[in-house]
């Protein structure tokens, strides 16, 4: 049953938000049928060993470098290059989280996919392979969720002050790797900077982000996720949860950039672009499933949420409210001109994301379905942005006046 469940994951994820125009892009597992899609490092190596493919690949990359990409793509040579590449493993290649040469794989992916989509799509297809059952990170998350629920991460009504986030900090402090990595990012994010640094500059944000990324990459999610997703019953716990990523350095800034500008700068970096696409793919609220997560896959959503931490679009809890928490980015939609609707929709995917909320609450309250306080959203067919969840059509029925 598990394999089938996973199998469908592959296709639904592709189905749901894949926006590439041509057909075979959605052939799910790639043009090789059932084999897991080749990773983009391997695929481009193979392409480079094939004279026809490598020349077309080079042409297409040159097509994309040009300033006005749209007119470039209209030119015959670029078209021919696209044609060849559509029948090549490059076309369907994917990347694995934490793989060797992950960044190179992502760069290859985007160098191909930028050629296949004209202007920017609101939701881009994630370069990452959908999660497989044997993925260790996934397995460790399952154990994290189960251990979280068994180790009393739940606030059982024992009367004694219960602070799951404090328990998570304790568990981390008692684990050498977690303790060391946590201390590294806290020092990097909290360091007042060397004297040469401007005194008013609170910290070195870039260094802080890198240390945060390393923390979540190197520490087992069994220790790192409870720090982020502990279920709080009071503001003390919720404020500790908010402080986990040292927001004064990694999140807050003196001014709030425009959210579309933030998205643009994220999409100019292959790693950030990939992680944002992955978050959209795995956390996009859908009315098709009970939990409002694509394929009820909480893990995918949590993994992709954590994947954003330490990048330009680092998300965080906005305040210390414990029950009705909300998550956001550090940006605003002021100054969006005619794109305010799109900007609001982009921000809503963080602030009003029922899938993400359910996933976090499920993690905090343990994975037993019964426990999961579900935030329902209206069931409807898969759709692209924005999904309206709050307005309902009113129906009035009057007997017809027989003529």
């Amino acid at each position, binding site marked *: 049953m598990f394999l089938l469940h996973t199998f*469908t994951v592959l*296709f*639904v994820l*592709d*189905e*749901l938000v894949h*926006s*590439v*125009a*041509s*057909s075979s892009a*959605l*052939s*799910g*597992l790639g043009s090789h*049928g*059932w084999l897991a899609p080749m990773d983009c490092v391997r695929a481009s190596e193979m392409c480079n060993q094939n004279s026809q493919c490598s020349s077309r690949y080079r042409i297409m990359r040159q097509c994309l470098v040009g300033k006005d990409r*749209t007119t470039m*793509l*209209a030119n015959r040579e670029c*078209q021919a290059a*696209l*044609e060849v590449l*559509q029948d090549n493993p490059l076309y369907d290649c994917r990347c694995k989280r934490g793989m060797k040469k992950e960044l190179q794989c992502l760069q290859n992916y985007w160098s191909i996919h930028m050629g*296949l989509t*004209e202007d920017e799509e609101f939701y881009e297809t994630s370069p990452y392979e959908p999660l497989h059952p044997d993925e260790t990170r996934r397995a460790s998350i399952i154990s994290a969720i189960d251990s979280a629920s068994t180790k009393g991460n739940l606030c059982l009504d024992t009367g004694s002050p219960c602070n799951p986030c404090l328990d998570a900090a304790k568990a981390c402090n008692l684990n050498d790797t977690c303790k060391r990595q946590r201390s590294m990012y806290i020092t990097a994010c909290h360091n*007042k900077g060397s*004297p040469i640094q401007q*005194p008013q500059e609170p910290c070195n944000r870039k260094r802080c982000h890198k240390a945060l990324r390393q923390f979540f990459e190197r520490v087992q999610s069994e220790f790192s996720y409870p720090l982020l997703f502990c279920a709080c019953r009071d503001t003390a716990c919720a404020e500790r949860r908010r402080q986990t990523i040292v927001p004064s350095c990694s999140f807050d800034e003196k001014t709030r*950039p*425009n959210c*579309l*500008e933030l998205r*643009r700068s994220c999409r100019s970096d292959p790693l950030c672009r990939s992680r944002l696409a992955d978050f959209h793919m795995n956390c996009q609220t859908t009315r098709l499933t009970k939990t409002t997560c694509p394929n009820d896959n909480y893990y995918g959503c949590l993994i992709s949420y954590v994947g954003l931490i330490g990048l330009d679009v680092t998300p965080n809890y906005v305040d210390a409210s414990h029950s009705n928490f909300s998550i956001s980015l550090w940006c605003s939609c*002021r*100054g*969006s*001109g*005619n*794109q*305010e*609707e*799109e900007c609001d929709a982009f921000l809503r995917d963080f602030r009003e994301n029922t899938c993400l909320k359910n996933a976090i609450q499920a993690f905090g309250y343990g994975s037993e379905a019964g426990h999961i306080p579900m935030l329902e959203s209206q069931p*409807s*067919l*898969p*759709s*692209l942005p*924005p*999904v*309206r969840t709050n*307005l309902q*059509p009113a*129906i*009035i*029925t*009057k*007997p*017809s*006046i027989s003529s």
Partner: protein
Amino acid sequence: SGLYFPQSDYSESIYIGQPAGSPVLQVFAMRDKDSERPHFYLCWQNPSRAPHYASWFHMDEATGMISMNKTLEWDDFGSVYPSSMMSFKKLSLKAIFAIGPVQRASCHLRNTVGINLIFINATAPPCDEITLEKLCFPDKEVTPHITENRMPGPLYQLRRLTRSHLCLNYTISYGVDADDPVPFEVNDTTSELLVTRPVDREEREMYRMQIVCKVETGETINKLFLPMHVNIYDENDNPPYVNGTDTEDVVVEFNRMKGAVFGNLSVYDRDTTPIYPKDHPQNKLTGTMITNDTWTKNMFIVDHSFREEKAIFGNVRGTIHEYKLILNKNLSILENRSFQMDYLLKDLSYEGGDVNVMLHFNITILPVPIRFTNVSYVFTVSRKSTMFSKIGRVCVDNCQKFQGIDVEYQLEIVDRNTSVDLQSCFSAVGIGRSLRDVSGMLYVNDTEVLRRAECQELQYVVVATEQQLQLQARTQLLVIFEDEYAQEEFVDQRMLSCAEKRKRGECEAFRGLGTPTGRCQWRQSTDKGISQNYSTCSPDLRTCPDGFCDVVERKDTICPQDCTRNTIIGGHEAGLMFGIKAGYGTCYCFSEKCFCEKDDIEEAMCD
């Protein structure tokens, strides 16, 4: 052309059995001029390799109506992404409009819109199983937008075309309902939502209404309501204007530093100014300094920033532009002139023609004299004071206000003919330029002199020299030594920092570096936990610890509490750059380390 799509994307779901010729959805383009006629085409990324489902759909070039070329069969569903097991598959189409007939529609033109059709692997439910809501309204929220000042016309097809063949005996009609009048209505014959007149965004940037769907099923009449809002897109149809003064009087005096900011003039614009994307031309004002004087052009720049505001523009987004005058270089202290500098603003993207705004900066630059006006200094120093004890401050006129003006201070002997012996007295006092402001700090520089009775009163001349132009000012300084010189106390005591002492008794008995009284001073904390008011032994509680490592304290380990860069052991909070900002219990420092710990730790004897 002024044509534009009133929706950023379209989506609809279709079933197996969708009949050939049946309508699927209608794409619209809003017109700018009456003469404009959009020509609609479906287009494909790579026309020679269009997906095989491309042939299933037809788009009417004139009406933008997409309809079925064939009836959808079961194996049609299987033919799309054969390896997918999903119960629905997404067919991605794109449509473009052109202002005239086109042979080969390329998707690479600017005006394309995405169309997502969800192909469901089932036949459509029979009429009695379809909810009225599904008959009336689309699954996905639709938020059309129209640009202000444009022609009226249809923007959205309200009918759920893919369901229209399912309940043939139903009569479905639409209407618009709103709390206050809205410029929208429904064309009863075509069920198209129309905008009835050009709208002005600066009056209202969103219209909320209810779409009323009336379904007559023979026995009953049902009314369904669906809230919809239409966004009004902005165009630059308002010129910038000044609300209040367009003139700012600027006086440049003590702040001569490059980057100094003066004045602030605001210019208003009822249009929005998008921050994103950065190079978006909409409503960006260009500014030009109107002056032929190259000196002014080199010396000043005008900084422009803008922010979006709503309240002051009648709850509709508008823009406030702010202009500040900034020094582009350090300004000489001799500069002394008054002039008016005009700054011309142009709104290049404003469609109403050439409307400019002129701002005026009345600039007065005052010279800054380097002088001591009617001031001479007299300081008394105890003979008990130790090396680096602070004596006092000297300051040319307004030195605390100086920014970008560098003044150094020296001491000179008044009477050069005094004996060599007497001249040696004058090494007793040193002077250094403060780091916090532009004053001079006097300190004890040689304690041997304090022994000598003849060095009773020392008359100095303080010479202040402005570093850029070497302008100088002088004044008198008299230092008088008092108290007895306690001979025995200098026998074997090496010069150590007061901070080494961790108890009141030891501290107040100790002659540490920088003590004006010859004795260290104890500060007792009354706080619990880590506090800025930690207990400590200081040479001079007036300035140590004060969170600032000043020019005298930096000379030696006079005030490690403010200056240490060494490891601090125990509960503490380090200063921003150095020093101990807060500490637990008592903080004390040796040459390599500082400690902050509970006061009652007994010195552990060796067991």
